[in-house]
């Protein structure tokens, strides 16, 4: 019997498996917050599917008391696409890492995003390969020294937000592992969105890349280093007494100090609009440390038809126009002839 009617709690979404991340790993917080959000989403537990690739982050499905599929490295979006096309009523979540999703799996992510299947993609970005013990990843900063780059990485990193926008994403957001409230808010928004909701979650790996996101994770510095995007609100950040705003002119962002009590709009500060063009989203994506704060929140949220809706519609239209398929009719279609018994 479905539990949909029963009021669920976080506990209902905890599986019986021991959680096996390193002590202090940011994944714990993401897991706990997602388990907290799930009951609010109004989806019956049996209709939820978590799909992941390979990586520390990809262990996620084991810990959710829903359906879960821990697949192979980089291909989770494709498995998830198959599930969603097959059974559009299921609530499908993809959990991936910066290596899984953007290194080996970049192409599937690209195509899933452009097809706009209605599913959520959570990319845990710790800027390192955790599971294979600490090589640099496509999001690692240039020059990062790791076992595989003892003289410093030579790759110019890929920005997950810019990548998603370049792929034509209809929903793009960023949030932070340990910022429970913001994380939950973004997860809810992602779930509400019809289409592929791409969420980059900044995640700390205390073992191989500790402190990568410290500035926005630490409660005492967060205000100064995180630019919280809110629909219709100006791009303002900073402590109460040292607010600063972001201007965007011809796609080029710049900072402006806001005197106490000043109206940001009068200082030319841009107002956030999730429905603006991808080019605006791109300008937002270029706002990044060290010069700028790190924007968090929903960069873009627009509507577009989903792949599975179009597919279902084609099936329905075919049935309507041609009637439900009849095997005997198919086999006898076109030219046939009879050989009579002698």
């Amino acid at each position, binding site marked *: 019997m479905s539990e949909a009617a029963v009021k669920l709690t976080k506990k209902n979404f905890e599986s019986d*498996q021991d959680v096996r991340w390193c002590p202090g790993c940011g994944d714990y917080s993401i897991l706990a917050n997602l388990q907290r959000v799930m009951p609010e989403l109004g989806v019956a537990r*049996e*209709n939820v599917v978590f799909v992941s690739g390979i990586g520390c982050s990809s262990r996620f499905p084991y810990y*959710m008391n829903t359906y879960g599929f821990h697949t192979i490295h980089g291909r989770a979006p494709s498995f998830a696409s198959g599930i969603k096309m097959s059974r559009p009523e299921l609530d499908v979540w993809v959990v991936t890492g910066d290596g899984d999703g953007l290194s080996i799996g970049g192409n599937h992510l690209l195509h899933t995003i452009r097809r706009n299947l209605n599913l959520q993609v959570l990319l845990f970005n710790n800027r390192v390969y955790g599971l294979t013990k600490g090589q640099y990843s496509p999001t690692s900063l240039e020059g990062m020294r790791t076992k595989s780059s003892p003289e410093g990485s030579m790759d110019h990193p890929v920005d997950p937000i810019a990548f998603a926008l370049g792929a034509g994403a209809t929903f793009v957001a960023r949030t932070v592992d340990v910022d429970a409230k913001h994380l939950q808010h973004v997860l809810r928004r992602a779930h509400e969105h019809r289409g592929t909701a791409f969420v980059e979650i900044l995640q700390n790996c205390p073992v191989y890349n500790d402190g990568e996101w410290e500035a926005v994770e630490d409660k005492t510095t967060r205000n100064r280093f995180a630019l919280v995007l809110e629909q219709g609100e100006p791009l303002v950040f900073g402590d109460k007494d040292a607010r600063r705003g972001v201007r965007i002119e011809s796609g080029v962002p710049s900072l402006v100090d806001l005197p106490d009590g000043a109206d940001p709009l009068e200082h030319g500060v841009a107002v956030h609009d999730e429905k603006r063009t991808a080019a605006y989203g791109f300008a937002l994506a270029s706002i990044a440390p060290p010069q700028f704060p790190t924007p968090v929140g929903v960069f873009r949220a627009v509507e577009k038809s989903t792949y599975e809706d179009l597919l279902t519609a084609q099936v329905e239209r075919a049935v309507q126009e041609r009637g439900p398929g009849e095997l005997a009719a198919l*086999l006898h279609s076109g030219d046939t002839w009879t050989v009579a018994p002698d």
Partner: protein
Amino acid sequence: MTPAMPESSQPGGSPKPVHEIERVAIRFVGDSGDGMQLTGTKFTESTALAGNDLSTLPDYPAEIRAPAGTLAGVSGFQIHFSSVDIRTPADKPDVLVAFNPAALRANIDDVKPQGMVIVNRDAFTKRNLERAGYDEDPLPALRERFQLVEIPIGTLNREAVKDLGLTQRQADRSKNFFALGLMYWLYNRPTTPTEEWIAKRFPDPIREANQRVLKAGYHFGETTELFPTSFLVPPAKIEPGRYRNITGNTALAWGIVAAGVQMQRPVFLGAYPITPASDVLHELARYRQFGVKTFQAEDEIAAISAAVGASYAGLLGCCTTSGPGMLLKQEALNLAVMTELPLVVVDIQRAGPSTGLPTKTEQADLLMVLYGRSSDSPIPIVAPATPGDCFHVMLEAFRIAVKYMTPVAVLSDGYLANSAEPWRIPEVETLLRHPAQLETDPEGFAPYRRDPATLARPWAVPGTPGLEHRIGGLEKEDVTGNVSYSPVNHARMTELRALKIAGIAQDIPPAEVRGPEAGKLLVVTWGGTHGAAASAVDQSHEAGFTASHLHLRHLNPFPANLGEVLGRFERILVPELNTGQLSRLLRAEYLVAAEPLCKVSGQPFKVREIRDRIEAILA
């Protein structure tokens, strides 16, 4: 109904004598743009309606449209039809219809000595001869070796349509119908079906042009001195029933549709275009009314991953590809082995290695499909024997996949894919109907609790209350399916995976021998080599050399009695289009001295090639 025969309502009604013959093979050859495939297909349809047994083989160039008149652009279509049972498109055509010098040059050596060669005289210009690489006009020399018939097809064609106001290019496009009409007359085939098809297919004035030219060709045959007689191949004695022509790829696609219907589960096809498998995707994309979902993925990896996702979600997941795509699927296939999900993966083999010869055939992916995954990863393999058999093999593959909760591989090939044969349409009621069972009962549910008979685990799909569980590619604990690194458990699970597949041997028909049950020589075949080998065995027998024939539809596991059967023969010959893959399996499995007869030229076996070896062995 007996098949339609040329009646007096047909143009003319031949006043010339009609010669009855048992069989004939015709090859149409021309430029890719000359419509050879269409000509061949239409002739095939008429021949099928005339009640002959038949077999066809198209031969495409690898280029989309190579420069006109060059050897690279030659396209061909061969049809073999007969009043007796036949199984191959024939080793050598009796008749060659060549539209230009390049086509002649590329094909003339295949024609039977003293066979008929019909050429479009108009195309033998200096320029065309050069393009084909001829230094001088080849026709004079051919007159001695063949019955050469030179017809100004181009001119006659233009003549026929001259008042229709067509551009010259438009006009020239109908000239293949001239040849078709002529061949209809020569072999006493009905023209009506083609006329009707033209009427439906083309708008005026093209329709008018094509129909006129078709008739012009027919009348030309009747009238000209060039042909003293026409020929009649009487209907074959074939099993009664309703028939149609079918290519391997169409049969394969229909088999997938049928599996969905018979198992009462929607079908999901994940595919990425690749020669010669793309047509299955094209065909299936037309059957949304059956609930068939087709997905053209960004690559083969995404295609199979989506199909595995579909299977996980309770649909009949399926993939179609060819060798270079197949190897990309092995990682996801391995996941399906580990998670024990039903899935059917079809490899329509082509000649390789690497990009190889994409439009040519080969049977060289057997070992790759059997062994090409990391670690020990057993899966069942089934292979169709004929174009029509592709339909039934797909039903069998899905039956095994769902009953045993396992991915299954199907090995077709480029030859089966494109060649056609008359196919007795099965009564839907006679097809296996076995609705797939999804698990719904949470009571005592465990994802890897097995059915003791089949060793299959339950198919528990998302959306089912109470069955929430997690699976994945890490080794699973027996019964619970939890992640397990236990050495004992890994050994046990490896064994269970092997036992499950091995057990299928009990659930497939035993190997059957055609011919004596024991003796000096057994010919063992698999896949599309069936036809040539069967004919070779029969012909050798008629010539006084008796061998037996065993065809394997199941390549993993082998039929339970196979070892015993092989043991009854002194020698075992395995004709295969590779360097000896099945032979190696038989040798390893049964320690019998199976000898391969290898052919690796991108072309199917000729009957003669197998026959020669049989007779050499038995001589």
